[in-house]
């Protein structure tokens, strides 16, 4: 790794350290206690895994606004499947598969209708939310208790870190490797950086984009599974507006909405910054409105800093 990219990555990381130190001082040393750190990890898990998926989409120069709706649909699908007596594992896979299918449809619509991703996924955001409500008959769906409810919980006698968080870590590593160490990953970057160049170089643009949306949605499916685990019910009204948190994590982590830029590590740090602010504010007893203003300020500041940095490197 070059010193340059080290500094670039460290930039976001220093932001995280700064935010953590500020709240450490405000809240006190118990802010960094193992229990508190674990609380933050659990809080982070859902946004993180969806944001890792969104990183792929944003690197390819696209966007997916239907993420929140997909999470709601996944919780409802899992709950309904469990009620039908399906095994927990099959229900989980059914939920993830449903999300992947939604992503596949997004990808096909974007590439075949040649409508910009913002508009297509704005539409499917409503369609999928509607489907979730229809399937859930506009109410919470109670489901029989299974081990799916324990994914974000530490049960007695088990390892310190819950299995849901392990899943997020393993998947993040895999996606980071996919972006860096596979041809598909480099094609995603090429399409996002300059689609015309990608076409000139013979990159299969349609196929790559469809894979991007489907794969990203499968990760959102995992986020939906964790959401179900947290709620232990299927809730068609959950995660409204979550896509904005997810996009914000990617942007704070150095992703560019113009495409061609973004890293999984940066995105996870971005998600961590937002989580530290949220938990920090609530433990300090600050009102929700303070939290929102601080998070919003961080997003704008992160992008502005990035602009200044890239302008400095150009001259």
């Amino acid at each position, binding site marked *: 790794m070059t010193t340059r990219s080290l500094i670039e990555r460290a930039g976001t990381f220093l932001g995280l350290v700064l935010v953590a130190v500020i709240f450490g001082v405000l809240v006190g040393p118990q802010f960094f206690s193992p229990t508190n750190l674990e609380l933050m990890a659990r809080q982070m898990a859902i946004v993180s895994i969806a944001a890792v998926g969104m990183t792929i989409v944003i690197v390819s120069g696209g966007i997916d606004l239907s993420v929140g709706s997909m999470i709601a649909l996944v919780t409802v699908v899992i709950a309904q499947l469990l009620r039908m007596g399906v095994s927990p594992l099959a229900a989980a896979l059914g939920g993830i598969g449903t999300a992947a299918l939604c992503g596949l449809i997004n990808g096909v619509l974007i590439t075949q209708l040649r409508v910009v991703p913002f508009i297509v996924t704005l539409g499917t955001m409503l369609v999928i939310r509607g489907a979730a409500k229809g399937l859930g008959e506009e109410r919470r769906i109670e489901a029989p208790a299974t081990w799916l409810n324990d994914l974000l919980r530490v049960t007695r006698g088990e390892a310190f870190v819950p299995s849901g968080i392990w899943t997020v870590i393993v998947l993040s590593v895999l996606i980071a490797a996919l972006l860096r160490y596979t*041809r*598909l990953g480099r094609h995603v970057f090429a399409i996002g950086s300059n689609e015309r*160049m990608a076409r*000139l*170089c013979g990159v299969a643009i349609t196929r790559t984009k469809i894979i991007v949306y489907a794969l990203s949605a499968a990760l959102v499916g995992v986020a939906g599974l964790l959401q179900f685990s947290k709620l232990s019910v299927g809730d068609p009204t959950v995660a409204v507006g979550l896509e904005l948190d997810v996009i914000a994590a990617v942007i704070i982590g150095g992703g560019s909405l113009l495409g*061609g830029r973004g890293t999984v590590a940066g995105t996870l740090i971005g998600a961590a910054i937002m989580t530290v602010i949220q938990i920090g504010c609530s433990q300090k007893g600050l009102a929700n409105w303070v939290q929102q203003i601080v998070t919003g300020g961080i997003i704008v500041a992160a992008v502005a800093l990035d602009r200044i940095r890239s302008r400095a490197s150009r001259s």
Partner: protein
Amino acid sequence: MNHPPDAAPPRFAMRGIRKAFGATIALDGVDLAVSEGEICGLIGQNGAGKSTLMSVLSGALQPDAGEMWIEGRRFAPHSPHDARRAGVAMIYQELSLAPHLSVMENIMMGAEPMRFGLVDWPRMREMASGALAALGRDDIPADAIVGNLSVASQQLVEIARALAVGARVLVLDEPTSSLGRADVEHLFALLRHLKSQGHAIVYISHFIEEVKSVADRFIVLRDGRNAGSGHTAAATHDDIVALMVGEAVGNLFPRSPRTRGEAILEVTGLEPGSASFTLHRGEIFGVAGVLGSGRTRLLRTLFGLEPVRSGRVRVGMYSGVAQPHERWLHGMGLLSEDRKEEGLALTLDVADNVTMSKLSPFGPVGLLFPARQRGAAARWITELAIKCAGPWQKAGELSGGNQQKIAIARLLHHDVDILVLDEPTRGIDVGSKAQIYRLIDALVADTANRKPRAVLMVSSYLPELLGLCDRIAVMQRGRLAHAVPAESLSEHDLMMAVTAGTVV
């Protein structure tokens, strides 16, 4: 000094304009003047300095030295806005209209009549209609949407806007490139009409016949200097070409021994382009033509980036139409003329840019080991002497010449047999140009370890074609003529053929 040295000051004058970009001197003391009621033609080859001169005039660039006057007053614009306010109206090839707005909104843009702080629509309609009527075109409705008009009418709207805001000098850059013959006639009639009203007009064109037809005087630029000027009535097409061409270029262009091998690309009756030709190994085939002649479209059609209407293409063993990724497989690679928009991904690193068309050597089953990818790129960085910090540097941080070498390195990395090069030396420094010439020559030269390749290249810089190519075909108004051996052509002949576009 507040007045130009002339006794009767022209409407607009520039004296001794100099502009350098780094070591490249784009303009070296250029003079230009145009009087009231005069049309002055500005002629020059690509790279002669026309566009730089226009950027200086329009305020987009500040000259390093030299002065400009409008109606005897010093004029030193710091921005295009400054220049517009001083009365310089530029009409570019690419029109700058708001396509979704109406004709009157476009004409009055920035000068909308107001009443009580609100737009005075009836007055706006009246003023816009008046402006159109003054141009003899009251057939264009003031509330039509600009995007629905023909290109010729849009151009007229742009001219009307320039006049409505009180232009002192009207500059038209290649205004006929997208017009049909009848529209060209109309435009010329309009320009003569404006001249008779006392407007001062600078008319830039590749087509000498057009300049002869519409302008009173002409000025020729060559290598950033005034190469000559005169009255169009007194000069022949030949005289003007002689001024554009200048002396013969030295041996910038190497020629290794070449042997013409097997036919590797065969094109028969290809539309668009009306093209039929055969390209052999060990040969450089040149296509000469001005901007907008359809030369780029021909190359893109061959490469599968634009649809084939009819005709046959055979590449090696393969016949028929193909997508770009199939063309790469057939051993053909395209260098785009538009480095920034299509040729390179500027936010990605050098290694990605060099290797993107062929990542398969860097790992099994879809995997890619960055070390191997960078190793491959490093090889080309050394061989082509690309100046960069390393394969991981972003392509956008390099100079134009080095970017171009990266784009060419992609074809070498892919090891294609047919290199299709669209303007291989556009916008790069002289040193890089010489390197690229040597490289192209080496590709088709006889070598012991590899069959020679074949090169199909387009260039608007004629000495380059003459110096490198074995055969040259002229492309004009979308049609490719038969190829002739390069040694049978002089630059003068070729310039005559290329610029003999419209004869009005």
